[in-house]
């Protein structure tokens, strides 16, 4: 059987604009079916899928790299031409960086770790992820927690919610006396709404398709539930509108906003669209005194934050490298143990068979003499293996363990299953195998 590989196929805010991401996003309702399809792909051993506003990533342990083509099809026709395929060590590094929020739109934001954990738990629940990803996720979470506790990247205006509030202040100035309208139930929008309310915005209105849900969110964010059917009238009133519904069509249209703007006598309005697909028609931003920011736009502002925290990001990257090195070392140690066991088993097996053959020819020996011969053979094996065993233990496996396995024909065996650590020793030159699909050969 070919050596299994760790694969990551996906795209993020770095590769594609929101217009593409909204076409490939997988909703929570569709996720179980998607996981079932991933698991059904021939050659896929384990898989999990992360779908957030900013990325769609499929992680998989597969029998071969060719499985990446099937995974790409799962990204969909709109996303596949832009998707990036990563394998082995590079896929592992990517997982760690994503979990540590180093690849996030707003570096240091805390939500991505929770989203990855949720994605993994869902995959476990549906039988798509198993022991391999369980171990990997534990390590990735540990690295992410170190990054948060040992660096300052999470400090300051680093969440999307904070950036949105900062922009609202840039347009509207003092938020005292302003009305905030929250449309939908997105977690990030709720965070932003809370922050706006805490910035002395006087009124927080919560509109939702379900009035019960609106009441529930309103209680959580200390707002007032309103009827979503009254949205045109609510737009006349609201200075900041936060949209995060799961609607497939725009909730706030150009025409609706034109009427609202006239009714509000051209008072400026700031619309934050955190939904995917977008809830606000892009052309609304062309209206005078109306400013619409979607997830991609917030990225541009967040880029400034990244610049300011370069040193902290460098330290966080260093932590991720340390954690990856620790994981690889542990994997090598794990891989060395079975090689040693098999080597000893092999040598003692050879000695035993040779002793038995010799003893059969020396029938005159009594039991004591036979035991002496057996002990001698065992001692010879032990003395011969002492040096190699010590070296293998010192080297913690790695190339030496592979060489020993190859030299003595020890590759087959229960401990040799590379699915346990497909990234322990990535082949030379394959670690940087990050090719956009268009660049694949």
């Amino acid at each position, binding site marked *: 059987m070919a050596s299994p590989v760790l694969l990551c196929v996906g795209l993020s805010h770095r590769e594609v604009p929101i217009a593409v991401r909204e076409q490939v996003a997988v909703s929570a309702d569709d996720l179980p079916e998607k996981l079932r399809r991933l698991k059904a792909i021939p050659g896929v051993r384990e898989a999990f899928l992360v779908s957030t506003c900013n990325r769609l990533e499929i992680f998989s342990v597969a029998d071969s790299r060719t499985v990446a083509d099937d995974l790409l099809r799962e990204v969909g026709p709109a996303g596949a031409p832009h998707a990036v395929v990563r394998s082995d060590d590079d896929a592992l590094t990517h997982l760690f960086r994503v979990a540590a929020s180093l690849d996030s739109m707003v570096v240091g934001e805390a939500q991505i770790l929770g989203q990855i954990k949720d994605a993994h738990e869902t995959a476990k629940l549906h039988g798509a992820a198993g022991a391999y990803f369980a171990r990997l996720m534990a390590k990735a979470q540990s690295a992410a927690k170190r990054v948060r506790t040992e660096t300052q990247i999470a400090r300051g205006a680093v969440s999307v919610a904070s950036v949105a509030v900062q*922009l609202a*202040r*840039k*347009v*509207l*100035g*003092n938020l005292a006396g302003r009305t905030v309208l929250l449309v939908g139930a997105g977690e990030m929008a709720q965070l932003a709404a809370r922050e706006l309310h805490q910035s002395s915005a006087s009124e927080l209105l919560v509109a939702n398709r379900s009035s019960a849900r609106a009441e529930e969110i309103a209680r959580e964010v200390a707002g007032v539930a309103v009827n979503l059917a009254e949205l045109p009238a609510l737009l006349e009133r609201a200075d900041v509108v936060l949209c995060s519904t799961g609607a497939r069509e725009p909730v706030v249209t150009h025409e609706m906003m034109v009427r609202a703007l006239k009714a509000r*006598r*051209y*008072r*400026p309005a700031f619309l934050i669209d955190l939904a995917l697909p977008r809830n606000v028609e892009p052309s609304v*931003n062309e209206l*005078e*005194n109306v*400013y619409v*920011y979607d997830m991609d*736009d917030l990225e*541009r*502002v967040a880029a*400034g934050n990244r610049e*300011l925290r370069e040193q902290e990001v460098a330290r966080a990257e260093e932590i991720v490298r340390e954690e990856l090195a620790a994981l690889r070392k542990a994997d090598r140690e794990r891989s060395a143990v079975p090689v040693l066991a098999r080597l000893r088993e092999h040598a003692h097996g050879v000695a035993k068979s040779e002793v038995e053959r010799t003893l059969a020819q020396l029938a005159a020996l009594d039991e004591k003499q036979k035991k002496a011969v057996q002990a001698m053979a065992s001692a010879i094996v032990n003395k011969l293996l002492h040096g190699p065993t010590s070296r293998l233990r010192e080297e913690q496996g790695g190339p030496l363990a592979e060489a020993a396995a190859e030299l003595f024909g020890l590759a087959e065996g229960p401990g040799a299953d590379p699915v346990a650590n497909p990234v322990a020793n990535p082949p030379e030159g394959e670690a940087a195998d990050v090719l956009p699909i268009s660049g694949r050969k």
Partner: protein
Amino acid sequence: MLAARRPLCNQSEAMTTALVHIALSAYVAAAVFFLVWLVRPQRPAAPDATSRLVSAGRAMLLVGVVLHLASFAAARAQGGIATAGLGGDEWRGGQLFSLLAAVTVAGYLILDFRYKLPVAGAFVAPFTVAVMVPAHLVQTGARQFAPSLTHSAALALHVGAAALGSAALGLAFALSLLYLLGEKQIKNKHPGRLFSRLPSLDLIDRAGWRLSVWGFAFLSIAIATGSLVSKESTGASFPLQPKEGFAVLAWALLAALIQARLVAGWRGRRVALLVVAGFLLLVGTYAGLFAAPPQASTLSMLVPGGG
């Protein structure tokens, strides 16, 4: 510089000139502080250094405007020569621009005290220097007022209102430019370096609106009193000259702007564009001073080379 070119009449005039030159140096220093603050990268690690630059800029402007106004007082005390002139017998070239610069700086300091607008200081300080330098380096002869205007209250009111109106509209113009720049950056979602320095669009809009209203009020007074001054000096209440034409156009545009804001609720970008247009028309009024024949307008005597 100027002192070397212009023969000093007496010790008092030398003091006046020295005050103006010190004020000009303070304006230059303020411009440097504000511009360094504007162009240097923002360093959150050293906010004190940033605020020190702004504080130094404000202090220099304050020192400059106090000395500048003191020079007007000194000139008035010595009988109207040099930089002051109001109520005296004659004006020297550039006096109006000098007065305009002083009033603009004073207006900015009040605005900054009220709204905290250091970014506008980065426009006002260099503008002041740009106005002051030619006003004091260009060598022009003193012009005598028409005898009927020597102690005309209407002239004093006219010049004062024109200076205050021009300063208010100049500041509104600067804020409108800032608004248009900031609005473009927010609209296009490409916040540049200026973005972090700018106050909110709402604050710029409100401050610009108030200045426009003040500018309109003073411009109305200046036009009305200008008509009286013109009648006193030439006999014609409203001579048809480019200066007057531009002034009336600027006034009409500002009136329309105020009407649109109050009745239709116009604000933001289109109001900023109207203020820019209004100020450019006002600049046309000053350009009209140069174009007008000496006898056609009283104020033609107040500009470098006028009359």
